[in-house]
């Protein structure tokens, strides 16, 4: 039989999940987790060469290809990180082996759900996949069974469910809009056909649909004021999950949003989705930037920074145009790499310090040079300072915006500056100054973190033409 990569990237995680659910013991399961993640990544890479033709349920195009590869890659590195992280958790007894099995199974299930959401060629399927992803992450956030963890999970769950419901309503509306044109049945939910015929859809229905989708998937993206679940979920869950949440799940939800934005953009009579996204983006950016100041929990702080960057990305896509869209895609990629790397560092730091409270950290560059400088590097990157990748995207966003909408650009710049100030205020306390707090040794795995940073660094000064070509195609698609 011929080998179908598309099926593979879905089957591998699914099978792995099933296996991990039954296998006992730390060593083998962790290894299996890594292996499965790597296999998925390898297969995803093969998508670059052989791209299967779109079916009723699954398809691959320039847009999601990049995301699939990114997702599987970060999933792989995160699994490596999580191996060392979880070992420490087991040793300190924060996790028991039963939960460990659960954890690994859920991890692969999450991978499966995200891959499904990315490859889905069917808005219904995509919706189901994202719901699945949400549920799995909910369960993983609550895994520590502390008051805070349960509460975070509960909050995430309730808000997520509402989001899901809204998204579904939007999906139904899209179907309603498509049906008169395309006809009943599955075709009316297939991306490729939808995109082809979008111009003739009923604009009013599309508008309402987009409002619901924006709020529904926007809840997953964590745009303010729908962000409430995000900081706590990041803060209370296991750090690998925080990394995956920030690095991947937000992207996946944003990806879904982009798909629908494209749909609307194709319809001349519908409202321009741009202004909505720009507004929400700016609100999220400025709001998160201010919220960064009073954070005492390091993971919650970086969660807010994720909100901030999602705001920037939404802003970029809202502005539209080749430059801004390119910047948005680049920013998405760079952010997920950087933020997950930061969470790798933060996870080990929290383990070394035995707390997530910033007040009990200090002088890390002196006590744990690699972790400390890793964190510094991460913050420098996330603050959008050159020569790291996020600078390029911010450069493009700001410059391209200022020539078109000066005032928006000023708000954007102000938000970014406020955020940078907050981040470095905390960084000073964490990484420099006299060492503070407990100082345990950790068997940290630095490789994933520095691999990510290396990629971000390279992207900041040199981007391979192939990637650029993809991004530019997609940027054109996004209009």
């Amino acid at each position, binding site marked *: 039989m011929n080998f179908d990569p598309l099926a593979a990237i879905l089957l591998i995680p699914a099978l792995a999940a099933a296996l991990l659910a039954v296998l006992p013991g730390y060593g083998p399961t962790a290894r299996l987790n890594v292996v499965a993640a790597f296999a998925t990544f390898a297969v995803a890479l093969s998508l670059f060469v052989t791209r299967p033709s779109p079916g009723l349920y699954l398809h691959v195009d320039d847009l999601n290809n990049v995301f699939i590869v990114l997702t599987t890659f970060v999933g792989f590195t995160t699994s490596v990180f999580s191996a060392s992280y979880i070992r420490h958790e087991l040793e300190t007894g924060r996790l028991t082996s039963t939960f460990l099995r659960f954890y690994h199974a859920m991890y692969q299930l999450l991978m499966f759900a995200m891959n499904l959401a990315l490859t889905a060629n069917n808005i219904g399927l995509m919706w189901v996949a994202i719901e699945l992803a949400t549920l799995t992450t909910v369960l993983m956030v609550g895994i520590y069974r502390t008051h805070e963890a349960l509460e975070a999970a509960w909050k995430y769950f309730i808000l997520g469910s509402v989001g899901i419901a809204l998204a579904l309503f939007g999906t139904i509306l899209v179907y309603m809009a498509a049906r008169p044109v395309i006809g009943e049945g599955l075709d009316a939910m297939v991306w490729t056909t939808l995109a082809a015929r979008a111009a003739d859809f009923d604009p009013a229905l599309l508008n309402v649909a987009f*409002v619901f989708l924006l709020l529904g998937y926007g809840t997953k993206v964590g745009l303010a004021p729908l962000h409430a679940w995000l900081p706590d979920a990041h803060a209370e869950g296991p750090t690998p999950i925080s990394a995956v949440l920030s690095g991947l799940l937000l992207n996946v939800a944003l990806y879904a949003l982009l798909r629908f934005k494209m749909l609307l953009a194709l319809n001349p009579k519908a409202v321009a989705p741009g202004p909505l996204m720009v507004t929400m983006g700016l609100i999220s950016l400025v709001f998160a930037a201010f919220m960064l100041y009073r954070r005492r929990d390091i993971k919650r702080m970086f969660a807010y920074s994720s909100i901030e960057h999602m705001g920037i990305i939404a802003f970029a896509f809202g502005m539209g145009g080749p430059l801004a869209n390119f910047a948005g895609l680049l920013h998405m990629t760079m952010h997920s790499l950087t933020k997950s790397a930061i969470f790798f560092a933060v996870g080990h730091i929290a383990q070394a310090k035995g707390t997530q409270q910033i007040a009990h950290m200090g002088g890390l560059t002196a006590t744990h040079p690699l972790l400390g400088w890793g964190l510094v590097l991460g913050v420098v990157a996330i603050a959008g300072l050159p020569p790291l990748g996020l600078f*390029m995207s911010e450069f493009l966003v700001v410059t391209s915006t200022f020539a078109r909408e000066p005032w928006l650009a000023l708000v954007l710049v102000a938000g970014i500056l406020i955020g940078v100030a907050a981040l470095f205020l905390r960084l000073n306390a964490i990484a420099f100054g006299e060492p503070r707090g407990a100082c345990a040794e950790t068997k940290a795995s630095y490789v994933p973190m520095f691999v990510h940073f290396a990629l971000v660094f390279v992207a900041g000064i040199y981007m391979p033409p192939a990637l650029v070509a993809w991004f530019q195609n997609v940027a054109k698609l996004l209009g």
Partner: protein
Amino acid sequence: MTLIIASSCAAVLLAVAALAVGIGRSPAATPTVYGLCLGASAVSLAAAVTHLLGTPTPIEATLPLGLPWLGAHVRIDALSAFFLAVVDLGAGAASLFALGYGRHELAPTRVLPFYPAFLAGMNLVVLADDAFTFLVSWEFMSLSSWALVMAHHRDPDNLRAGYVYLIMASFGTLALLLAFGLLAGPDGGYAFAAIRNAPPSSALAALVLILALIGAGSKAGLVPLHAWLPLAHPAAPSQVSALMSGVMTKVAVYGFARIMFDLVGSPAWWWSLPVLALGGVTAVMGVLYALMQHDLKRLLAYHTVENIGIIFIGLGLALAFKAYHMSLAAALALTAGLLHALNHSVFKSLLFFGAGALLTATGERDMERLGGLIHRMPQTAFMFLVGCAAISALPPLNGFVSEWLTFQAILLSPQLPSWGLTLLVPTVGALLALSAALAAACFVKAFGITFLGRPRTPVAAKAHETDRLSLAAMSFLAALCLVLGIMPGVFIDALAPVAQSFAGARMPVQAGVDWLSIVPIAESRSSYNGLLVFLFMVISGTLAASAIHRLASDRLRRAPAWDCGYPDSSPATQYSASSFAQPIRRVFGTVLFRAREHAQMPPPGDPRPARLTVVLRDPIWETLYAPIAGAVGWVTEHLNRLQFLTIRQFLSLVFAALVILLLVLALWP
């Protein structure tokens, strides 16, 4: 060719930085790194100078880096060649100094990797020829220097300094980002060539001017954006302080010149108004701040602010003249400004090296705890004295030449047809004169309190002369101060191509004038000859000395100080830095800094010492920075409540968003 050499030198520096990360801990690291830096910058300097002296036609190249569809453009023309020379001159001197000074570094692993990176960043800024490369190098320079400021991170003051520095740096970069956004236009023509071909409309250009003033000014230390500078420059290790004060600020000047003289096209006359006004204010404020300091390195940092003001006065005049197509005058003003940039980088580096030598010798930066060091470290004292004289614009040293040229440029300004300028320029001239005089006063204080008199603390009494390499670096710069002072014509001629291409004309050729004197416009109008003045002074001084020693007595007897017959009292009775500044503080400080002196006199018979406390307040910090910080704090305070809502309340946020959006749809036309 030059371009290849220059950029490869930058690449070498980056490689050295990477190397330093690797070998940072080994004892051989310090000499290796600084040695390599010295070599690289020397080569690059040679390349720049040859390019400047040869007929400098712009050379361009594009590397497959940076923005994918744009690539990294690098280019070297007269302006960048000149600033490349300034950068690498300072870099070379600093590296030489650090070869000796760096050995006393406590945390080499926090300095060595970033030092070459810093140098590379500055080189690249000067070479960059598209907005992206320029800003990347610019911010890279800030970032690496930030890391150097944080080198001694255990001191809370340094932490704060680093923090303020980074914020101001990002602020400036963002401003420049916006400026380039305007220049490049919506479809992103980021290459400087493209920008040159499509200069912005006058309204946009005005916005660019403001943004460039903010962006480059915040890096250069224009008042009121200088706040970070006196915090950050002293916090770094001394060779880095020298670089930041002497060189990095010049890179900022380069950025401003590049944008205003090259990219935005022909200027309008009123552009010069803010530049001149800010320049004048900066010059005076800077020196007044400096007079109130008793931390030596901070004092020097504030003087950087002052000199930046002088440089900007030159640039502003050049803009004004250029706007009215008075090319010759523009050339004079521009040359004056750039020459002062060069001079300042020389003597400011020299002074910071001196401060560094003191730091290693005594571990003190506070002048109130020094004194009498001229006996313990005579060579350092001599070099420092030369630096002081130079920065105080005393003939025949170099500081005087550039200020003299600036005055000459000001004296040409009545030919400017516009009212605003005719009223502003003489005022600026007065401010310039005032700042020059105050600078002299300030350096009498700096040198007198630090090196003269009697040691105020044991550490000062037990200080020892610094090492040879540091001295070599200092004497090199001191010699340069004299050379620049007595044969300025050479350098003015070297600057001719810059003036030619950016002011539209060049100053008259100085090489022809006999006795190496300089003639800005015409000999009947004004001329100055540093060499002759120098010779005159030497001759008459030696003449007098020999005559007196031969004809009259040369007997000499040591005795206790006379001091109006008071018995020799403790060193504490000497004038201290703050008491020396007291008259000037009373004259200027009472208004500007709201200086208040509280004297607590114990009642008669009470043995307690009387106490004099002086309260100074920083007007700019209080009126500009504190309110902003307060506002941010207020907003965060109030927004932070949103972190603590119940799930229901969060749900109602979602609900509200939904309803609002639906309403928007319902009301959509």
